[in-house]
């Protein structure tokens, strides 16, 4: 595994009496697209604001590139491009002027603006006032602002928020391209299906606690996989499963049952055959991130 570029240890934060983060420890490997996933209000934006030094009175440690955000703020922020919630754009200015402001603040040469506009596909509309941009264009301009200084790390908070399917696809493609250029992307989202296709690593946060942190494949492999049994006697199968106390989902003759191992699949098949059920097909189903997410959240809720 690559060295972590972002690492938090026991991060805690509260707004007044409301505890938003509880001992959150995450580790983002270099060169990854890290999906930071959770419902609205889970603590994603708060974590991002701490990483960007926008919230200062937190407990625990936040290291970026092995440097403490509290003491090395300027050095760290010089290596990060960020988009937090909605992009803060000056609507009375053009796209180019918005980027020019950022280029002055970051001491970036104006020529870089053109490259960045091309990367996000806004070159044609660079002289249009931002107030006349579509929502998707504004999001892309927000990403352009984050990219302008060619940062090593991109921190993007809900970059696909409010975008139509085409816009979401464009952002996904852009992020994949950026990863291939060696950037590490920390991406928060509450719509899991939108980011599932591109993330390499994942952190799942629920009510300020990390439920899972690690590789996407490891997450999908954890816990029980669903196995689909195609049977000729679905009513009898359902009756037996209910009697045996095994949870299942069914759709006509297809019965989905969580199985933790191949031995369990073989065992169930034997049981079916012994009880006169003809099994004509068995298929392991790939779990969606959303499915795993809900499993984890449900488990957490049961424990608390």
């Amino acid at each position, binding site marked *: 595994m690559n060295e972590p570029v972002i690492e938090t240890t026991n991060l805690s934060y509260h*707004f007044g009496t409301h505890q938003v983060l509880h001992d959150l420890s995450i580790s983002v490997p270099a060169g990854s697209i890290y999906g930071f996933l959770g419902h609205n209000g889970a603590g994603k934006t708060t974590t991002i604001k701490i990483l*960007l030094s*926008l919230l200062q009175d937190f407990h625990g440690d936040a290291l970026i590139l092995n440097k403490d955000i509290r003491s090395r703020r300027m050095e760290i922020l010089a290596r990060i491009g960020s988009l*937090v919630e909605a992009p*803060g754009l*000056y609507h*009375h*200015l053009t796209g180019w002027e918005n980027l*020019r402001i950022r280029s002055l603040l970051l*001491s970036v040469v104006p020529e870089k603006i053109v490259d960045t506009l091309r990367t996000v596909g806004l070159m044609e509309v660079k002289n249009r006032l931002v107030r006349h941009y579509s929502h998707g264009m504004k999001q892309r301009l927000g990403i352009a602002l984050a990219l302008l200084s060619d940062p090593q790390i991109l921190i993007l908070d809900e970059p696909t928020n409010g975008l139509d399917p085409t816009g979401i696809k464009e952002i996904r493609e852009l992020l994949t391209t950026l990863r291939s250029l060696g950037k590490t992307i920390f991406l928060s989202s509450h719509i899991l299906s939108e980011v599932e296709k591109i993330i390499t690593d994942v952190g799942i946060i629920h009510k300020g606690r990390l439920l899972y942190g690690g590789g996407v494949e490891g997450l999908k492999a954890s816990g029980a996989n669903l196995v689909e049994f195609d049977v000729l006697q679905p009513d009898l199968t359902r009756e037996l499963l209910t009697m045996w106390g095994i949870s299942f989902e069914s759709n006509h003759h297809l019965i989905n049952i969580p199985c933790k191992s191949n031995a369990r699949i073989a065992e169930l098949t034997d049981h079916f055959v012994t009880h006169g059920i003809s099994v004509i097909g068995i298929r392991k189903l790939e779990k969606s991130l959303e499915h795993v997410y809900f499993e984890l959240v449900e488990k957490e809720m049961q424990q608390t």
Partner: protein
Amino acid sequence: MNQFYNCFRTELLKTKRTLSFSGAIIIPTVITGVNFLTFVVYREDFAKAGANLWIALAGNIFSAFALLFLPMYVGMVGYSTNHIEHQADAWKNLFALPLKRSTIYLSKLCMVLLQVITCVTLLYALTLLSGQILGMLYPELGFQNYDSTVLILVTIVKFTLASLGTLAIQYVVSIYWSDFIKPMGAALIGLVVGILLAKWKFAFLVPYSLCPRVMEQFQKENLTIFNREVLSSVLWATGVFILGYWLILRKNVK
């Protein structure tokens, strides 16, 4: 220094297509223009008075400017400079950049000061210009017989310095209050309270009373710049700017 210069340049760029500098031009132009017309229309009455009409000319302008427009104007420029960030929801972006928060704070402050200085400089130039033109058009008014340029200049400098305390309060308040009503409401209340308290013996401690008191000093043709009103204003401004700086360093962007 380079970072500060770039930051200040961005503040200038942000005023593009806004009315930010309009107030600095419109207010002095309207006040001196209306006053000029008043002198043209009532020139015979003014000629009969026979005194130094520079005092009357500047007095009319200063009454409107220092007692009403300047306190509201400093509130407005403080508000508009920070409102650009509130409106764009851009504070979080600014503070997430590798910039010192002090650079952002000071460059915005310089932008506010630049607008106020533009306004008072134009007021000074237009006051003198209107007197000169009236002197040329109507020699019987006697503008050419007196020279009050120093008194007018000193008074305008005093007004500027005396408004710094108010400016500091309005600037810092508008960083924290994003809406129009609160900072401008505070300016309006301050203006009324300032005028009401201007005669009080400790009024030199009330920042909003300082311009009315400088106005009184102009009427007495007082040329002392660094009197207690000006010093009080500078102290208020220094204290509030330091407090604002301290607050912005600790500001959490929620």
